[in-house]
């Protein structure tokens, strides 16, 4: 029983990453009508910014003592990756407006391959451990009903806070209202004097920034590898198909619960743990083709 509980909590932690990634995918899809295949690559990029910042960056600029610690990485990696994302949007994705949605998928797939291949040249595909886990997050915490690794707990709570803050921003603030209106009818919103192209760029930057943030949080747990994003994005796609991209809260709930189910499967029948999400997707497609929270 306890083993199931531990795995469920660990899975929930993973599910929080799924939630953050599918959230970003949903926001980007809403405004740009692009399924961002490069999302996994930006997640990986986030983890690599943290790793490089800690171990190599100082050496590159001739100040070997400079180490960008975990807390700074948590702030800087999403910014750096968000900026790269905005550049990508401005120079490439923008030129696809009015074309078939599938072109967006193919273009971002190409971007994902370029990023992944680039890092695969310099870093071991088996993964490099991130050595910068903060000291206060070492060890385990007693949750009353179980012992749980402190860092995992922190990552879980932090991701949940970010997810709900995003939900609040989109569903409850003025900026979010403009964003939602832009999703419905960008022409009309532009007529009201909103700079929609800028909004699109910022949205893309924000979405991939979220992915990078998840990447930084994941770095101390898993090893940092050029392939970590590709493995992730396929699962997140399944999560998105299950939940539907129509609802922000739907993305969060689906991500969390699927992570948890995946964790529980590890105890119940381990060989199925890597495929359970895809199998659930197949079942959902049979029962509710539009997804649990979807509207097609």
């Amino acid at each position: 029983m306890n083993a199931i509980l531990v795995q469920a909590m660990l899975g929930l932690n993973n599910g929080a990453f799924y939630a953050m990634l599918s959230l970003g995918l949903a926001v980007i899809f809403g405004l740009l009508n692009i399924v961002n295949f490069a999302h996994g690559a930006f997640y990986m990029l986030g983890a690599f910014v943290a790793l490089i910042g800690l171990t190599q960056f100082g050496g590159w600029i001739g100040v070997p003592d400079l180490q960008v610690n975990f807390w700074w990485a948590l702030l800087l990696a999403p910014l750096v990756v968000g900026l790269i994302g905005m550049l990508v949007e401005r120079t490439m994705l923008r030129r696809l407006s009015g074309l078939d949605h599938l072109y967006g998928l193919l273009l971002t797939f190409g971007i994902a391959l370029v990023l992944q291949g680039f890092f695969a040249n310099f870093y071991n595909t088996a993964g490099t451990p991130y050595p910068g886990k903060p000291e206060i997050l070492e060890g385990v915490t007693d949750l009353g009903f179980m012992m749980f690794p402190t860092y995992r707990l922190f990552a879980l709570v932090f991701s949940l806070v970010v997810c709900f803050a995003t939900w609040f921003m989109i569903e409850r603030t003025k900026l979010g209202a403009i964003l939602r209106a832009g999703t419905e009818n960008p022409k009309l919103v532009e007529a009201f004097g909103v700079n929609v192209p800028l909004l699109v760029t910022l949205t893309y930057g924000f979405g991939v920034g979220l992915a990078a943030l998840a990447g930084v949080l994941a770095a101390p747990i898993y090893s940092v590898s050029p392939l970590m994003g590709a493995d992730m994005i396929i699962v997140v796609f399944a999560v998105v198909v299950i939940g539907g991209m129509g609802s922000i809260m739907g993305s969060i709930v689906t991500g969390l619960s699927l992570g948890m189910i995946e964790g529980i499967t590890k105890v119940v029948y381990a060989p199925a743990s890597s495929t359970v999400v895809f199998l659930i997707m197949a079942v959902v497609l049979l029962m509710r083709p539009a997804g649990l929270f979807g509207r097609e």
Partner: protein
Amino acid sequence: MNRWLWIALIVLGLVAPFVFYPVFVMKLLCFALFACAFNLLLGYTGLLSFGHAAFFGGAAYITGHAVKVWGLTPELGILLGTAAAGVLGLVVGSLAIRRHGIYFAMITLALAQIVYFVALKAPYTGGEDGLQGIPRGQLFGLIDLEQSLNMYYLVLAIFLGGFWLVARVVDSPFGQVLKAIRENEPRALSLGYDVARFKLIAFVISAALAGTAGATKALVFQFATLTDVHWATSGEVVLMTLLGGVGTLLGPVVGAFTVVSLHSKLSFIGAWVTVIIGATFIVCVLLFRRGIVGELAELYRKQFGGPRRPNNHKKLAPSPRQREA
């Protein structure tokens, strides 16, 4: 299709093994058939499958196992692989056609990942090593396929057969309905066509042919590996089709030749190949949406006239006869 094109293809095919390394040409042909099968779906039905490696690699594993462990003859092995890929296509297709566009792509990708994990973890597949040492055997119990040239002409025959089948399907009334679905699905539906069934049949044909390609590849190289079922292979067949020209008959062949040659010529630069493949994707989508064959046809049209094709490739695979909206 043009008779001269066929004659040229056959002559080139007959001569090729004396000019190039036969195994290399066989690899080209297998991937060309794979891309043609894929193009039937993307180019002529407008469905982007991101999981075609499951059929290609799945068939490779099944044929490999059948020939190696059960001792089937190569022709039966290939048939079995093809049939298995068709059945798998029926399952994946009937799930995936419940959604449209990008969702279709994501679903096929996710379902193909199940096949990948099965190939990785099942007891008969050899895990990380893949299935090694598949015997080529004797075709019909008579022709020794260990002889490189014999194997080559079998592969050529399979490729030409598959290519002919695709051309035939595209030109048939059935193919016309597929194109109608690609152009305007609601209209095809309102004309009374059972769109879902047509899509599913196209998916099964495409999956089965991809299986033929994979099964043949398994015999040529005498192994089936995880690369065959990996999502990167699914991506590569998309690139072959896109680069050669989506919705052109010859495009996938040209695209497959280009991508496979690129891989073999650039194998010395390691992971940079992935960067180049990715960059090719980007360039194709941004600047080059008609693909090599599509651009050449357009150039020819501009030079020598011919029916105007108001074809700006806003849709992934618009027909030459697409009307101006």
